[in-house]
């Protein structure tokens, strides 16, 4: 028999995969936006992107075309940061026991996984791409460098796709491993290892690397090409990266549904 204090509360009536979703999503977003995480990340990447590009922006006029190539390269570092941030999302919760605690509530495993994927994706994209890019656009405008805002936004979305590749890869690895070592090591090894395998003819143009850094198959990165209005030399990288993200997400959900805590 419920006491007065709970009898007057409205019971939740969400079932299936939606059970617990709103509560978990709220907590996931709060972990970004109600802590110092969002502004420290946003400040860090705004300073890193704008600082590293300042030389090209304010220096030799002939180097100004390099700005957008550099933009793509710098977002590669953000991708590595994403792997570092995301390795805690699943493995950290499995090891600390918070995942078991949360899943002892009436919530679905799908809702738990969505609450790791969506708030982190939004947090990462906002603080590592959207906010720094907005400042970069302002920066370019102050420097008198003309850039099409819609094309720049499209280019930023390509760079974001590269971040999503590492975010979803790390999320999936978190469901496959119980220790942080491989979850952080594999994305880092892949991030740096792409430099080596990008030289293999045919492969360089499909790796996520081609999205943000030029390869032997494509001198200009997809990001840079989109922003400057040049032809995209490695469209395969867009397809492969987007497809890989989908596969990583599906594997992560599949494995998480079978994980014992």
């Amino acid at each position, binding site marked *: *028999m*419920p*006491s007065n*204090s*709970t009898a*007057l*509360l*409205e*019971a*939740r009536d969400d*079932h299936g995969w939606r*059970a*617990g979703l*709103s*509560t978990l999503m*709220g*907590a996931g977003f*709060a*972990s970004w936006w*109600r*802590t110092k995480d969002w502004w420290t990340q946003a400040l860090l990447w705004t300073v890193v992107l704008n600082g590293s590009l300042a030389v090209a922006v304010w220096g030799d006029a002939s180097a100004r075309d390099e700005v957008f190539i550099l933009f793509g390269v710098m977002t590669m570092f953000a991708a590595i940061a994403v792997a570092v941030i995301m390795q805690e999302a699943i493995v950290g919760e499995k090891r*600390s*026991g*918070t995942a*078991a*605690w949360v*899943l*002892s*509530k*009436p*919530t*679905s495993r799908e809702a738990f996984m969505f609450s790791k994927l969506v708030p982190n994706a939004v947090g990462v994209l906002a603080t590592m791409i959207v906010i720094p890019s907005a400042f970069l656009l302002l920066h370019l405008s102050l420097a008198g460098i003309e850039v099409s805002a819609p094309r720049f936004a499209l280019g930023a979305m390509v760079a974001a796709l590269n971040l999503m590749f590492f975010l979803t890869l790390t999320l999936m690895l978190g469901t496959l491993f119980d220790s942080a070592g491989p979850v952080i090591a594999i994305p880092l090894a892949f991030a740096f290892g792409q430099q080596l395998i990008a030289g293999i003819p045919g492969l360089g143009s499909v790796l996520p690397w081609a999205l943000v850094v030029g390869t032997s198959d494509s001198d200009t990165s997809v990001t840079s090409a989109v922003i400057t209005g040049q032809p995209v030399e490695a469209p395969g990288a867009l397809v492969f990266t987007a497809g890989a993200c989908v596969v990583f997400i599906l594997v992560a959900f599949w494995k998480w549904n079978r994980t*014992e*805590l």
Partner: protein
Amino acid sequence: MSVDSTDLAVQTKALSKVYEGTSAVDAIDLNVPRHSIYGFLGPNGAGKTTTMKMLLGLIRPTSGSGSIFGLDIEKDSPEVRRRVGYLPQEPRFYPHMTARETLRFAAGFFFSGPADRIESRVDEMLEMVGIQDKANRPIKTLSGGETQRLGIAQAQIHEPDLLILDEPAAALDPLGRRDVLAILERFRASSTVLYSTHILDDVQRVSDMICILKDGRIVEQGPIGDVLSSGNDSVFTIVIEGDVDRARATLLDQPWVDGVDADGGRTSGRLRITVNDVGTAEARLQRVLLEDEALVVKEFSRPSASLEDIFVDLVEDGPTDA
């Protein structure tokens, strides 16, 4: 004890869990009556936590089945979890949340509003476990005992029909333990409590029923009174004056006496008699001694065993079959 299944909060049938060929839980049949405080005992690795996690759907049983209030623990797991509050062993919560936010978060799985009433419920829980003055502190600043209290509060936030508490008093000092036991007693009226612990004194104080696990199998299960009385069922103690050796020899001549240990001197002492037929012993024991007119029986009793004695007996040497 025979209990109708509708009177059971938890029932398992041959529930088992095997990890890579090693049996962690081996065909256990739990019967937890509604509104009981059910102590779940066993040494480390006996399978207590694994069993609790199977009940909650966190671990899949290898075989067997289980139900909570008639709901299947696998098929109806989300519905089961609506009716259960769980305190994990060594509870960990999100470090960026405060104690209040943690309770609000836990309440969010069960209630959608109104916000002010949820807040009242949170306040009520904070007060119940005595951490209202720490409500707005981040989790990472709470002590182990305070975290444990928060764990009990979050488990009870929705007034569950069943509380599953994995070592609720483990991280607490004696005063904290006393408070937790008092809280468990209060839950009895509205809930069923299934809890594991290593603190046998606590079990003896508050439990109605106990279950002792060893190597994943139940070695004892039943009302605490029955278990305690069964512990020394076959032992009698007699204090006599007279020839102790002759009394001992007389007793050992009886076919229903298995052994006699004597303490004291030659002319008076305490005899601890182990029998194989309690009924005959109750009827004949004093009479046999009093046939010797030189003997005086000063005391006659059947000592009650402590839970610790029974636990140690069962876990160290006891049967492995339930």
